[in-house]
C-alpha cells in the first residue's frame, strides 16, 4: 500500500461524491433552508428586541448550525448503504478509514461549507456587530468539520437501523457540546471585544483530534454495522 495509491483513492471518492451531489444539486438547498428557518423562529419566539437578539445571536446561530449539520448527516452513508456501494468499500483494497475520510470531507463541502455562506446574512438579521460576524465565520469554518467528523461515527453506527434518525441525534448531540461551547463563546467574546485566541486554538485542537481519530472509529463502526 503506497501513498500515491492512497491519495488517488481519496481523490477518486471525493470526485465521485461531489459529482453525485452536483447531479442532485437541488437537495443541497434543504439543510440551508433549515438553518435559516430555525434561526428565524427565535425572534418570533423570544421577541424582536435588538439588544436581546444581539446577546443571544451567537448561541442561536450555532445551535441552528448544529441541528442543520445533524439533519444532513444521514446522507453521508445512506444511499451507499442502500445500493450496496458501502459493501464494495468494505472489501476495497484501500483502507476503509481513508475512504471514510474522503466521504466525510465531501459531505462537509456539500453541507457544511454552504452554512458559512448564509451565516453572515443570519448575523445581520440578528443584529450581530461586524467583529462578531467575522468570528462567526471562522468558528463555523473550524467547527462544522468537527461536527461532520463526529457525526459520521454516529451515522456509521445507525446506518443499518430502520429508525436510525432519532437515535442518531441522541448519540451525536451530547458529543457536539464542546464545539458549541467554544464556538458560541468565541463569537460572544469577539462582540465584547475580548481576545478569542484561546477559543480558536481549542476549536483547532478539536478539529485535529477529530480528523485523526474519527475516520478510524467510523470505519470500525461501519464494519460492525454491515456484518
Amino acid at each position: 500500500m503506497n501513498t500515491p495509491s492512497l491519495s488517488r483513492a481519496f481523490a477518486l471518492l471525493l470526485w465521485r461524491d461531489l459529482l453525485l451531489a452536483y447531479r442532485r444539486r437541488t437537495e443541497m438547498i434543504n439543510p440551508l433552508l433549515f438553518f435559516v428557518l430555525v434561526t428565524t423562529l427565535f425572534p418570533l419566539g423570544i421577541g424582536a428586541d435588538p439588544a436581546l437578539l444581539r446577546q443571544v445571536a451567537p448561541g442561536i446561530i450555532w445551535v441552528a448550525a448544529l441541528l442543520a449539520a445533524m439533519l444532513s448527516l444521514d446522507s453521508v452513508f445512506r444511499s451507499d448503504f442502500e445500493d450496496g456501494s458501502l459493501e464494495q468499500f468494505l472489501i476495497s483494497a484501500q483502507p476503509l478509514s481513508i475512504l471514510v475520510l474522503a466521504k466525510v470531507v465531501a459531505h462537509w463541502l456539500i453541507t457544511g461549507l454552504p452554512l458559512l455562506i448564509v451565516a453572515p446574512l443570519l448575523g445581520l438579521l440578528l443584529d450581530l456587530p461586524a467583529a462578531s460576524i467575522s468570528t462567526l465565520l471562522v468558528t463555523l469554518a473550524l467547527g462544522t468539520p468537527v461536527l461532520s467528523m463526529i457525526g459520521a461515527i454516529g451515522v456509521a453506527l445507525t446506518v443499518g437501523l430502520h429508525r436510525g434518525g432519532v437515535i442518531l441525534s441522541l448519540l451525536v448531540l451530547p458529543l457536539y457540546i464542546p464545539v458549541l461551547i467554544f464556538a458560541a463563546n468565541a463569537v460572544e467574546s469577539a462582540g465584547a471585544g475580548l481576545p478569542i485566541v484561546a477559543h480558536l486554538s481549542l476549536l483547532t485542537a478539536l478539529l485535529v483530534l477529530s480528523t485523526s481519530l474519527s475516520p478510524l472509529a467510523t470505519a470500525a463502526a461501519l464494519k460492525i454495522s454491515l456484518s
Partner: protein
Amino acid sequence: MLRFFHQLGSPKHFYRIAGRWIPWLAAACAALMLIGLYQGMVVAPPDYQQGDSYRIMFIHVPSAWMSLFIYIVMAVAGAIGLIWHMKLAEVIAISSAPIGASFTFLALVTGSIWGKPMWGAWWVWDARLTSELILLFLYLGVMALYSAVEDKRTAARATAILAIVGVVNIPIIHYSVEWWNTLHQGPTVTKFGAPSIDLRMLIPLLVMAVAFKLFYATVVLMRARVEVLQRERNAQWVRELVDIS
C-alpha cells in the same frame, strides 16, 4: 491463576462462579452501607454552614464517582470485547450501562436536592451537575443503540465503539463545561471544595464509596448472569439447568 481466568471466560463457568460470589458481595455491601450510613447520619458532626442538609453528600458524592467509574468500566470492557472477541467482556459492558445510568440519575437528583437550600432553586447550571446531565445522555445513547440493533452480538460491538468514543469525549466535555461555567456565571459555591474535610466526615464518605462499588459488583454480576442465560439459551448446559429447576 491463568486457568481460573480462562474458566471465567466460558459462559457456563462464569454463571456458576458468579452465582457463588453474589451472596458474599451482597452481604459485604449491605454491612458497609449500614456502617457508612450510621457514621454519616449519626456520628459525623453537622456542617458549620449547612447544618444537617450536607449529609446527602454521603449518597451524592459516591453516586457521582460511580457514574464516571462505571462508564470507564463499560468502555474498557467493550474494548476488550472488541479486540479479543471475549463474549464475557461484552456482557459485562452491556450489563453495566443501566446501572451506570441509574447512579448518574441518582447523582443528579441528590445534587439538585442538596442545591435547593443553598441556591434556592431545584436546578442551577452548575458545572458538575451539567456534566453529570450530559453523562446521563451518553448512557441513554448507549442503551438506546443497544436496544435498537436486533442482532445482539452486533449490538454489543456497536455500543462498545460508542462507549469508547464517549470515554475519549468525556474529559473534553467536562473541561468545556467547566470553562463555560466560569465564563457565564463566575465561580459558584463549590459544594465540597473545603481543603480540610473533617475525618469524621471523610471516613463515612469512603465507606459509602466502597459500599457503592460492592453494590455495583453485585448487581452487574446478577445482570450479567441473566444476559449470559439469554445469549446461551440454545446451549446444552442452559437446557440442563432449566430442566433441573
